[in-house]
């Protein structure tokens, strides 16, 4: 008769707390970095900010969101090896006859179950979102990924608190120490413990290099699995096409006008020719998508500040930017006063020396420094302020 799996059936000496703790430290670092950069991204996307979201450095969001996706990807090999090292513990028998110990063990196992399930969920949905593949029907990625980020980081902190004495002890001892090993974990593996830990770090590095080219131009050629090669109209990729946004007809219509609306009343309507006749400036700014890819371009157009001045609105006023898009969560976005006042915040009419491509937001799009890509509204039809 085959007995159910038990911890003593796993004999590799590589499945040791000394390995789990060393990989776990870096997994903790990756998760923390991922969590903090995720919070930054959510804060940046708020319609208004209790503490103003800065416009400098212009590449700030590009960096934090690139780190978010890269640290999440790097966490995958770390999590796999960490879970491999502690896998036998999944089969530990519960102390059924001692109610007090059973309750404690049940709580600990439950919290680890939550940690593992939430961690796998976060990494899986994050990777799927970067690849823009949504094989679920009901839940919202944004809401769920945000909520479970708190669950996974909280469960991780609880796990660290429970294990802290063991973690401290095994980290203070040499990696080959066997004090905390299971009695049957004695069979030498194909690698040394140090070798296993190093290979895990190498795997995290390899995966990062093979994917990070979507945001790090220097890695584009070797990032075989980056979700973007960096190519696109005028050398910049796009996220939402004019066709998907159903704006092709309205954006190319001769009737296009940019409305400047103050307190609900249109005070100016500008044709594309009139926009082009206004003073033009050029700024190098990144477009940094929430899904982790980014690219820097030379945008030219009219500053939002100048447009607001045309409407007689003082600099520093909050602006609502509306797209020609008739549907979609981001057809209206809020441009906080400090961003609208920045001299680099443009209603762009061109990119990299070319007129704006339809898929980049022709005839006019918003581009502001240090702003999440989803808020860089394309096919802008009006700028509205309330004084």
């Amino acid at each position, binding site marked *: 008769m085959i007995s159910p799996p038990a911890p003593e059936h796993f004999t590799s000496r590589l499945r040791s707390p000394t390995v789990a703790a060393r990989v776990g430290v870096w997994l903790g670092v990756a998760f923390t970095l991922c969590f903090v950069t995720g919070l930054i991204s959510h804060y940046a996307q708020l319609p208004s900010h209790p503490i103003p979201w800065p416009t400098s450095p212009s590449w700030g969001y590009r960096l934090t969101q690139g780190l978010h996706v890269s640290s999440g990807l790097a966490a995958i*090999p770390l999590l796999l090896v960490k879970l491999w090292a502690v896998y036998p513990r999944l089969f530990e028998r519960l102390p059924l006859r001692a109610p007090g110990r059973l309750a404690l063990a049940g709580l600990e196992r439950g919290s680890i179950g939550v940690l*593992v399930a939430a961690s*796998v969920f976060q990494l899986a949905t994050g990777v799927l979102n970067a690849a823009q593949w949504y094989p679920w029907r009901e839940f*919202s990625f944004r809401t769920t990924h945000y909520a479970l980020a*708190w669950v996974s980081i909280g469960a991780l902190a609880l796990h660290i*608190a429970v294990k802290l004495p063991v973690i401290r002890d095994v980290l203070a001892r040499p990696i080959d120490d066997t004090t905390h090993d299971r009695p049957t974990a004695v069979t030498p593996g194909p690698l040394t413990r140090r070798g296993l830990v190093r290979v895990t770090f190498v795997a995290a590095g390899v995966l990062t290099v093979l994917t990070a080219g979507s945001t790090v131009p220097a890695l584009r050629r070797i990032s075989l699995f980056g979700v973007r090669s960096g190519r696109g109209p005028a050398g910049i990729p796009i996220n939402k096409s004019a066709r998907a946004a159903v704006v092709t007809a309205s954006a190319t219509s001769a009737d296009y006008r940019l409305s400047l609306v103050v307190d609900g009343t249109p005070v100016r309507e500008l044709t594309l020719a009139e926009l082009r006749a206004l003073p033009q400036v050029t700024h190098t700014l990144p477009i940094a998508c929430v899904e982790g890819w980014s690219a820097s371009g030379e945008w030219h157009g009219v500053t939002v500040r100048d447009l607001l001045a045309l409407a007689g609105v003082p600099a520093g006023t909050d602006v609502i930017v509306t797209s020609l898009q008739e549907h979609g969560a981001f057809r209206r976005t809020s441009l906080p006063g400090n961003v609208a006042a920045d001299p680099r915040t443009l209603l762009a009419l061109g990119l990299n020396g070319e007129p704006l491509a339809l898929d980049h937001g022709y005839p006019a799009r918003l581009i502001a420094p240090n702003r999440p890509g989803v808020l860089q509204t394309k096919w802008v039809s009006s700028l509205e302020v309330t004084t």
Partner: protein
Amino acid sequence: MRVVIAIIGTGFAAYGGWLALSRQDVGQLVEVGLWLAAGGLAHDGVVAGLVLVVALLGRRLLPSAAQAPATIALIVWGSTSLAVLPVLGRFGARSDNPTLLDRPYLTSWLALTAATVVVVVLVSAWRARRCDDSAPTTGED
């Protein structure tokens, strides 16, 4: 110190749980629950089980000189393959956006796999030869 970390952790997790529960309807919550359970099972059952089987087969079938290179390859190639699974089939590709998922992912993955096999074979052969060369000296021990 431990108590403080535990309280903060429990608070964060509870806040996340409340966010998940309060911002979604029942249908969404059921689906999230299914995904959470499936994720845990996918690791503890499928991935961990596959690794166990591969390790067992590797130990039985591979010559000793190939064991370490094959293990290293399994960790690097295996975790990379798992992580890039969503791009391999270009499942999120859209006909209206040629800038998305615009690389030959499957070809790259096949090349990576072939290169991994070649490196493992070459390193194993080199290790086997090195062991043979040094066999007389170690044999005297």
